[in-house]
């Protein structure tokens, strides 16, 4: 659990920097949903445990595409 939290924090830090500096090579699209996918993953794993939380986070990430409306979506 601690490792997951550490990874999520590290991911958020890296993404923040990539977004701020717009490191070339990728287009960094901002979040459509609230909370963001990484925050969602943290909450989902807290609520449902590791595997179910992870699966739900995965589907949430896939939902976050140009066809979805976005908006509020808590686990």
């Amino acid at each position, binding site marked *: 659990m601690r490792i997951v939290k550490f990874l999520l924090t590290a991911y958020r830090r890296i993404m923040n920097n990539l*977004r701020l500096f717009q490191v070339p090579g990728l287009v960094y699209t901002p979040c459509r949903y609230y909370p963001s996918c990484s925050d969602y993953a943290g909450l989902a794993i807290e609520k449902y445990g590791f595997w179910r939380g992870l699966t739900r986070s995965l589907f949430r990430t896939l939902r976050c*595409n140009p066809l979805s409306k976005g908006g*509020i979506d808590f686990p």
Partner: protein
Amino acid sequence: MSNIFKIILYAPLFNALIFLSSFMPNRDLGLAIIALTVVIRLIFLPLSMKAQRSQKALNAIGPKIQAIKDKYKNDRTAQGAAMMQLYKDNNINPVAGCVPILIQLPILIALYQAFIAGLKPESLSMLYSFVPSPESLNTLFLGFLNIAGKNPLLAVLAGVLQYFQAKQSMSYMKASGAGASPQVAAINAQMLYFLPIMIIVLGWSLPAGLVLYWITTTVFSVGEQMYLKRNQ
């Protein structure tokens, strides 16, 4: 899985590279790398500009977002509603979402592989029948720079350009936002130097063709942001 990747991404990009090189003076592979990079950046340009504008707007209301998070710590519904209202009031409409980022990653990996393959003569067997096969690959960029080998000077140039690009981006992204906390500002300042150094260290031992790609894409970014800044 790796076969699908090869068929739909890697092989087409490699063929595009060789195809483009046939139009270049002396079949210059370096010029073809630059051309292919520009084409790909142009395809992603509309998405990229929208995303950057949207990100800038989000950064500008960063302190307000934090305030809402703190205020409604225990009431998720209220927190979400306040956040949506804030987005609405500031005309923020985030584009695309996570999936486009996930799609870009394999494209980027395939592009790297295509460039590396383009520098090796034996990969020509991968060419489609309608792409004219060159007798040999010309890896001498502009007639004097061997892009199949290493080139520390080019790596340093890439690092310097990366520094200017990051600096420019930082000022654009924060231009209208409230000042970040001193801690965040310190981390940002560190990253400003860390990134170019990383590029130089990596570029030092990579084939110069890849470094050429990085230089092209960085210059493209600088141009794009100059345009965004002028038209904000």
